[in-house]
């Protein structure tokens, strides 16, 4: 198999390298040259977007092919980094990874565009934004536990700055809380990762331990994780560290409280990335690391997840109903939707996992759209609470229409990718024996509709309010581009879900098979 | 040797060590409770001396001179320390007008 390389680096490495280089480029641009900063960011993210599309196309082309004919395995790249510690720069992607890289590139592309109007410390803003997304890309392509964790943590601090500096509403509290929460989750996961790392090495007894995911999986197959640890089954003992560590960012009830607050305080692009991508890191990590490494632990703990996700779905929805701030509504709605993702994972079926990954994608795009829209009018109105708003569709019809589209996508109306994925999760949950959870998931569409329609009505409908006469709509194609772009992505994958589900399918099959062999499913 | 001394049990290394420990303890108690910095300093020197005594005693036990050499070094160090200490105490006196340990308790928390 001939590896695919551009200038010595695999496209997957470039996916991380280009944002990193963009960050450097911005770093060496004078602060005063705001437009140059913006253009560098846009250029870098456009390029990344192109590569991400290319990767997704390759992944789609791989479906159903023999292992030898596939392109995706040829994108893997492994470079020894720190021999003594067993760290290597190891990137690889399967369908799931390709989908997530694609999602990230979409969201950041739109995020760069909607941030065009940031005037305060523009350079620092884009620096944080692109640094954040570098970490996110790193998580999605890493096949080395160290780089995985490195990237995971890397994504946290820029978020702190983005919220702390350019945020609004209670930003100091929110940013600090978010950062500490995510870091707590990350270090909790680190403890789990290190336990797994140690067990693998203590069992395989190689000269050096290794953080390579394939090494861990090899150890798993050899039975390294079947031992006892402090009187408990190792897998059962170690899995919750990964589960709750990653679950904190997922965010799993009751670890979710950082997220709505963080959404509410963050500037548009940061909210977009935060809800669109950052939250997906958790569930992605569970699927990429926790479940493959410790399948029996997963089987043991998944019933717990299945209970918690019901809280996510219903409780999140109910709390969203009680909110007045638009961003809090979308924030709690995100935590509700992430319940579906967790439910899909907990179903331990191929269908459910596929749906969960697809939903991660769909929700990412949808929620990015939501925050872009809220940010668009909030920048002008400086209020976001429903009683203060109303009737804005008269003045900003384009934004109003786009908001209706977003709400419908979020409410799980067919035609948008969210519907297809949520239905897959619901069917998958039932198939996996989680009947009550499936019913709760279906029931969840009711509160979802309630708060979204209330938000639409509260902000955009109703009599014309002269207070908003000065609002500017998105009129130029450039202003409209991010919104139209995100909506079309949602519609495209909503109308033809197989563009993505087929790509994800094999990853999901593999995970479900693994769990089934471990005694679940 | 007077009969009185002969009547006592022979002085062993344990006795030296006991004395050394006693001296160390005395020094420690001084550091703990005396407020005059000069006296605190002297108590610190006493603790170093206690250690020196132990060195000499052990040197005797082991029959090598390493311990005694060590004592020379430590005495030299102690002298240097005393010099530095006194100068700092003078500075303190100039700054605060006293040499009470509690005079230097501005920074806390």
């Amino acid at each position: 198999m001939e590896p695919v390389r551009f200038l010595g680096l695999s496209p997957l490495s470039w996916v991380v390298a280009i944002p990193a280089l963009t960050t450097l480029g911005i770093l060496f641009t004078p602060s005063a040259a705001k437009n140059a900063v913006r253009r560098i960011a846009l250029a870098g993210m456009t390029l990344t977007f192109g590569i991400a599309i290319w990767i997704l196309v390759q992944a789609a082309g791989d479906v159903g092919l023999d292992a030898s004919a596939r392109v995706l395995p040829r994108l893997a790249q492994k470079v020894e980094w720190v021999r003594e510690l067993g760290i290597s720069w190891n990137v690889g992607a399967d369908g799931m990874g390709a989908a997530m890289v694609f999602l990230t590139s979409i969201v950041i592309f739109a995020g760069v565009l909607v941030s065009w109007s940031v005037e305060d410390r523009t350079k620092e803003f884009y620096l944080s934004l692109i640094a954040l997304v570098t970490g996110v890309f790193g998580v999605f392509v890493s096949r080395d536990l160290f780089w995985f964790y490195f990237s995971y943590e890397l994504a946290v601090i820029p978020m702190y700055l983005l919220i702390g500096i350019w945020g609004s509403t209670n930003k100091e509290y929110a940013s600090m809380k978010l950062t500490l929460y995510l870091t707590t989750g990350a270090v909790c996961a680190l403890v789990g990762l290190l336990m797994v790392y140690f067990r693998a090495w203590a069992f395989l007894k190689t000269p050096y331990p290794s953080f390579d995911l394939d090494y861990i999986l090899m150890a798993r197959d050899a039975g390294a994780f079947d031992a006892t640890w402090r009187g408990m089954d190792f897998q059962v003992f170690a899995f919750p560290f990964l589960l709750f560590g990653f679950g904190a960012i997922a965010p799993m009830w009751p670890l979710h409280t950082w997220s709505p607050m963080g959404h509410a305080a963050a500037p548009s692009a940061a909210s977009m990335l935060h809800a669109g991508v950052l939250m997906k890191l958790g569930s992605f990590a569970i699927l990429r690391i926790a479940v493959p490494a410790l399948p029996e632990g997963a089987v043991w703990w998944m019933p717990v997840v299945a209970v918690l996700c019901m809280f996510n779905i219903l409780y999140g929805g109910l709390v969203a109903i009680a909110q007045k701030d638009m961003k809090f509504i979308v924030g709690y709605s995100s935590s509700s939707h992430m319940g579906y993702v967790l439910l899909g994972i907990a179903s331990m079926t191929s269908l459910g996992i596929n749906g969960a990954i697809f939903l991660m994608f769909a929700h990412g795009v949808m929620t990015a759209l939501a925050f872009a829209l809220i940010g668009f009018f909030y920048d002008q109105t400086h209020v976001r609470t429903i009683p203060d708003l109303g009737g804005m569709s008269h003045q900003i019809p384009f934004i109003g229409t786009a908001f209706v589209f977003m709400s419908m996508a979020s409410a799980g109306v067919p035609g948008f990718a969210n519907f297809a994925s949520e239905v897959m999760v619901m069917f998958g949950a039932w198939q996996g024996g989680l009947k009550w959870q499936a019913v709760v998931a279906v029931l969840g569409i009711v509160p979802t509709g309630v708060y979204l329609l209330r938000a639409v009505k509260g902000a955009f409908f109703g009599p014309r309010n002269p207070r908003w006469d000065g609002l500017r709509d998105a009129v130029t194609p450039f202003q409209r581009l991010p919104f139209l772009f995100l909506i079309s992505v949602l519609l495209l994958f909503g109308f033809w879900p197989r563009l993505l589900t087929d790509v994800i399918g094999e990853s999901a099959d593999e995970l479900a098979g693994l769990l089934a062999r471990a005694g679940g499913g | 040797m007077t009969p009185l001394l002969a009547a006592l049990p022979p002085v062993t290394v344990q006795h030296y060590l006991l004395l050394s420990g006693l001296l160390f303890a005395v020094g420690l108690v001084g550091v703990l409770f005396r407020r005059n910095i000069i006296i605190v300093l002297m108590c610190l020197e006493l603790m170093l001396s206690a250690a020196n005594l132990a060195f000499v005693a052990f040197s005797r036990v082991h029959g090598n001179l390493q311990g005694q050499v060590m004592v020379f070094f430590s005495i030299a160090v102690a002298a240097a320390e005393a010099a530095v200490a006194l100068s700092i105490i003078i500075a303190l006196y100039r700054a605060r007008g006293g040499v009470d340990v509690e005079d230097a308790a501005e920074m806390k928390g």
Partner: protein
Amino acid sequence: MGPELAPFAWAILFAPLAAAGVAGLLVRRRRGLAAAVAVSGMAVGLLCTLYLLARSLGAGEGEPTGFVHNVDWIRAGAFTARFGVVADRLSLLMALVVTGVGTPIFVYSIGYMHGDEGYGRFFACLSLFAFSMLGIVLSTNLLQTFVFWELVGLSSYLLIGFWFGKDSAVEAGKKAFMVNRVGDFGFLTGIILLCWSAASLPSFAGRNPLDFADLAAFYRAGGYEELAKASPHLLGLPVPALAALLVFCGAVGKSAQFPLHVWLPDAMEGPTPVSALMHAATMVAAGVYMICRVFFLFEPFPEALHAVAWIGGLTAFMAATIALVQTDIKKVLAYSTLSQLGYMVMAVGLAGATAGMFHLTTHAFFKALLFLCSGSVIHACHSQEITEMGGLRKAMPSTFWTWIIGTAALVAVPGTAGFFSKDEILAAAAHGEHASLPLLVVGLVTAGLTAFYMLRCTALTFFGEYRGHGHPHESPAVMTLPLWFLAVPALLVGWLGFPLLFHGHPWFQGEFGITGVKVHEGPHEFHLPLALVGTAFAAAGGILGWMVFGARRIDAAAWKERLLPLHTLLSRKYFLDEFYLWLVRTVQQGIAECSDFFEQNVLIRGVVDGLSAAVKASGRALRELQTGSIHTYVRFALAGSVLVVAWVILSAARGGNG
């Protein structure tokens, strides 16, 4: 007739979607073009439907009368969801209703919406609705039905709340969407339940558990018993029965049956063509159509059919009583629609799919006609209150006469469309397989009530003196022509089903579509005595209505006083709206507020902030150790050292290993 005709079926589906897309892009510029595109999208659908229908009816003996064309929409693991079109007589008849009623209404809208700010948007949404509705009609499987089910809900939401500046319109749209969602909850649960219980059976292997055709074949082969045996009872019901009832929930929502009917009257906030097309003719009939499509689920389970029939009957009666006291012309029609939908559902429950479909078809034409007439009236009077109308028969002759035709059909004047379809339902209640005397009584009484409120409405609107403002004029031709266009089928379409005339026509005989919907057993009979009784009830109601409001022989106000509690009960719609409002405002909001309180105070302030406060407090406490005094420092260091030394020495002495 085979899948080679699939492009025509796809064209029926996607022509309106393409129109919606194009119209959506033309929202601002070229408004006229947007309308033209929408109308032609619909016309394309109508033509394709007619062509396919002709092919189906013309199919020779032994030749299939329909076809199915599917593509895989989602594939994941062992799960495949398909997307396709089915063109059989059932779906084509329904498509004919949708496109046939839809096309004139689209044309009508050109005039009705003229000058509205959201002209282009209106046509985009209307086309979207047509797409969604045709999607339900042409759907080949349960999930696809659900997809378009929700899309219909979406377009309904958009169109009811079309005038988004009006709070009441937006609220009504919201209400419609949410009430439908409640029904959809049951629907989807039922689909999932059915899907996996069927898929888990070995005898089901190789089939798709969502597919109508596969499921129907399975049920025909005794699937019901097999399912009931294989899985334990849920909620006291056999699993397939529960699934059937849950699927029926969807129909309850969409077809506005009790207790989810509350959205439909409010939906009249939308523009009148919308009311005509969706909330009278097509969307609300989707539930009935869907039950017909999956009739095989209900067939083996008489209790389910019984429940369906009773829900229908209850709705029919209750809505008719409420219609008696409405003063808004569209509300009268809305409750009348509810009542007729109740009839249809009752028909399905009593007599099977054909009777329901028959009434659906006739009702679509005459109710759309009535709505358009009312629209024309509203257009002229700028008011919807019948108390502000009167004497319009002279000012608006076309509207008046078409209205009379529609009314005649609705009250089932012998010979009109409604007469035949209603008679079939009453016949089923009286003589059918599941005959039920109480339901027959309900049907007859409702027929009387229908005549009463329709004549009341007619009298108040078109007779007497004009009580409103300004001088109403007849509407332009673009609006009156569709009225006449619809008046013809409103009069005549019933004859298609008249047993004595078309008896033996394959249309209503044998198996009816790919899922094998059976026409009820035995040859159609025309029950003259029953028809006379039915007509008598209607005549009684009509005469009474005319006496009170037309001829004014009976003092309406006095009777109102006398029956005040009853009047209040009816005008407040049996207080159901208040109940739901209480449910939403108090119960749901209460739970939401409680959750929020828990979130804000227990989780955030309690656990999270509490934890951080504890950490900070311990930091402050530790800080106190640092007193600044050298003595404390020395003591601290010494105490610590003693502790460390003692611990190590003691543990060494005890453990003896270090």
